[in-house]
């Protein structure tokens, strides 16, 4: 719906009931098919969520398919199984074993295990980053609005090297250069993104992300101060000072976490407000950190409460079978009731967290988004279809990408 002549509001029309039904039903199907249906589950949930995004009266469409996800996943598994197998073999020859009994190992063995785990992680890291880019590219290529495709150029390896480089910089500066990492990586991806024939451009400056980082820096400051207090208290044997330092450390810790969420929300707002589509289509974004945190807390509590009720019911039903445990048949019935109940309660919990946490936060981001100069959209033409076969297989195989 247009508010003014050339600005377009975006609405989120998804509801709790239908999404819950969809997630619960497909979750059970996933269990019944030993996990294979999860690719179709993800596809159908995305179709629902995409179609809930209504911009100017037209909804988005997700055109991905389950079969292409399964296929991409199998390709990634073949590759990763061989790759990780080779890495493990090399480590074996080098005498570094990931398998060590923590109770009986010598310090040298523990160190060797730690080194082996790090080598394995850093060997897989490029593929995790590769998967991040490929997954975004796949989602773009399978998203359509007004019949026009989104798209993203190839460039996953370029992303991998940059992500490792900026990540390294951010780590050695103790997080001070995080905005540089956030901005450059988003710019790399945004500048390769298209809507139909029109290209996105990321404008703005990385230093302007520092205001969003304010609370993280305050939290880190409090933490540093609290360690100084605890250290000072320990030296002067002042118990009161140590106690106060401990309290400050707790405050600092919570502040860093909330500051991190704030940074996530506000850096998204800045980066979105500074994106340009084509020559003159702009965006405004005003998501509120308070809403996101409130949803995490209230939604998290609600999910926890409902999940404990569900697991409690399973336990009660299972308890009714305990008198039957004397014979073999009763034992099997008890096991089946427990397993089925547990699985159903787990699927229920996943569906609940989707409708109580993921969807409201997504809806908030989308509702606070607006397209400025929307008239330019009418001049955009179609782009070619993408034909990659691996879909987001690497992301699925490496288990990244979250709820949707």
């Amino acid at each position, binding site marked *: 719906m247009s508010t003014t002549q050339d600005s377009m509001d975006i609405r989120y029309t998804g509801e709790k009931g239908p999404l819950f039904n969809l997630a619960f039903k497909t979750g059970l199907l996933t269990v019944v098919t*030993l*996990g294979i249906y999860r690719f179709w589950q993800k596809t*159908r949930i995305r179709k629902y969520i995409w179609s809930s995004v209504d911009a100017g009266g037209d*909804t988005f469409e997700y055109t991905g398919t389950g079969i292409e996800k399964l296929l991409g996943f*199998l390709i990634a598994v073949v590759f990763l199984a061989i790759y990780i197998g080779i890495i493990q073999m090399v480590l074996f020859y080098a005498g570094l074993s990931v398998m060590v009994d923590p109770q009986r190992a010598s310090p040298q063995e523990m160190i060797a295990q730690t080194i082996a785990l790090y080598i394995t992680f850093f060997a897989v890291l490029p593929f995790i980053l590769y998967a991040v880019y490929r997954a975004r590219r796949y989602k773009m290529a399978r998203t359509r609005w007004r019949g026009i495709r989104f798209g993203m150029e190839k460039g996953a390896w370029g992303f991998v090297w940059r992500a490792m480089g900026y990540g390294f910089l951010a780590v050695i500066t103790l997080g001070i250069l995080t905005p540089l990492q956030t901005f450059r990586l988003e710019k790399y991806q945004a500048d390769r993104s298209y809507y139909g024939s029109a290209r996105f451009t990321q404008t703005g400056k990385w230093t302007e992300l520092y205001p969003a980082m304010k609370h993280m820096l305050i939290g880190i400051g409090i933490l540093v101060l609290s360690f100084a207090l605890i250290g000072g208290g320990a030296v002067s044997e002042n118990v009161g000072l140590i106690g106060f330092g401990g309290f400050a450390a707790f405050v600092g810790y919570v502040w860093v976490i909330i500051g991190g969420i704030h940074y996530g929300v506000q850096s998204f707002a800045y980066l979105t407000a500074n994106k340009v589509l084509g020559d003159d289509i702009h965006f405004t974004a005003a998501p509120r950190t308070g809403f996101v945190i409130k949803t995490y807390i209230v939604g998290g509590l609600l999910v926890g409460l409902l999940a404990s009720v569900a697991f409690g019911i399973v336990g009660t039903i299972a308890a009714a079978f305990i008198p039957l445990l004397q014979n073999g048949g009763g034992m099997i019935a008890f096991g089946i009731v427990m397993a089925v109940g547990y699985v159903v309660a787990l699927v229920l919990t996943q569906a609940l967290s989707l409708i109580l946490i993921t969807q409201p936060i997504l809806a908030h981001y989308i509702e606070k988004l607006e397209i400025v100069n929307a008239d330019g959209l009418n001049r955009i*033409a179609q782009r070619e279809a993408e034909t990659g076969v691996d879909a987001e297989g690497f992301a699925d195989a490496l288990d990244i990408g979250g709820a949707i």
Partner: protein
Amino acid sequence: MSRVPHGGTRPPPLETSGDFFDGETAFARPVNLRIDTDRRLLTGDGIDWPVDDIREVMDQAGGDLIVLRLKGDPVARLILRHGDIRPRLPNRRRSAPLVRRGRLFGWALAAVTSVALILFVLVPLMADQLAEYIPPSGEKALGEVTLTQIREALDDTGLSPVSFCTAPKGEQALRKIEARLTAQMATPVDLSVHVLNHEMVNAFALPGGQIVLFRGLIDEATTPEELAAVFAHEIGHVISRDPTRHALRSAGSIGVLGLIFGDFAGGAVVLLLAEQLIEAQYSQGAEGAADVFAHDLMIRAGLSPAALAVMFERFRALGGDAEGFIGHFLSHPGLGDRIAAARDAVPAGFRPRPLLAADEWRALQDICSDGTLY
């Protein structure tokens, strides 16, 4: 839903309106549409869609919008605001055909074949190779980790792993059997032998020369020679590195299967099933080879291989009560042959020398009564 009735009463004409996206531009074009019942077409300005080829895009939010597409056209869309057209589209729920189907199935076949190759060829091959070259320290660590896991898995109380039996006199007797057997071996191996305080009638070997005997096995044996026979059989597994190969194989297969089935609710069940499957493959040729090794070792140590036959007969007599490794023995059709082979292995005129004195054997039978925990 309902199909369009053929013949008889003709369905009433239907007119509706909506937006059309041609898939070429982002411009939404309002269109008036009607169903041409004679030609079975949905027609409008620039649109002639056969009603049989129209598909509805499913899993859409907000039941008030209907998104229609044409079977062969991946991009063009019709957005309607009234559901009254639904009964007139007989195939709207059928899935649109996959594009480039041949290529897709080619890739699918290649991918499934590769996964199968990895599971059934590459993993066993790599495990066998690795078992030859694995450094002793790695093999030892592997065995220790596996042993801890088994002890935890066997525990019913959920408090602490099943304990080792370590009564000193019993240990002495056990070492005596070990020394009698290992003294006759061509290549010395580093063995560590444990007795687990568990009633299962069982014994197994683990990577790194770990041999585990269960209390239930000692209780079931009536002579030390029977115990020594099982012991020798397990040494046979250690020599041929069966446990190492087995552990590496299952680790590899479970790793790959874990990747495939993912981390979902029923994952543990699948892995358990897979483990059972792999377990069953372990014992075919390897058991026979370990038997032959045991016969030879027993004879050289001055003990009768027939003791192995006696032990096997006890397993068979236990019938349905036997579990795990022994249970597998029973399911194996060749158990009778193995009993016969053990009896046949006794050379003519063979005179066994005694293994343990009566009090030593009693001490070994009481190895778990000390109550000291490991």
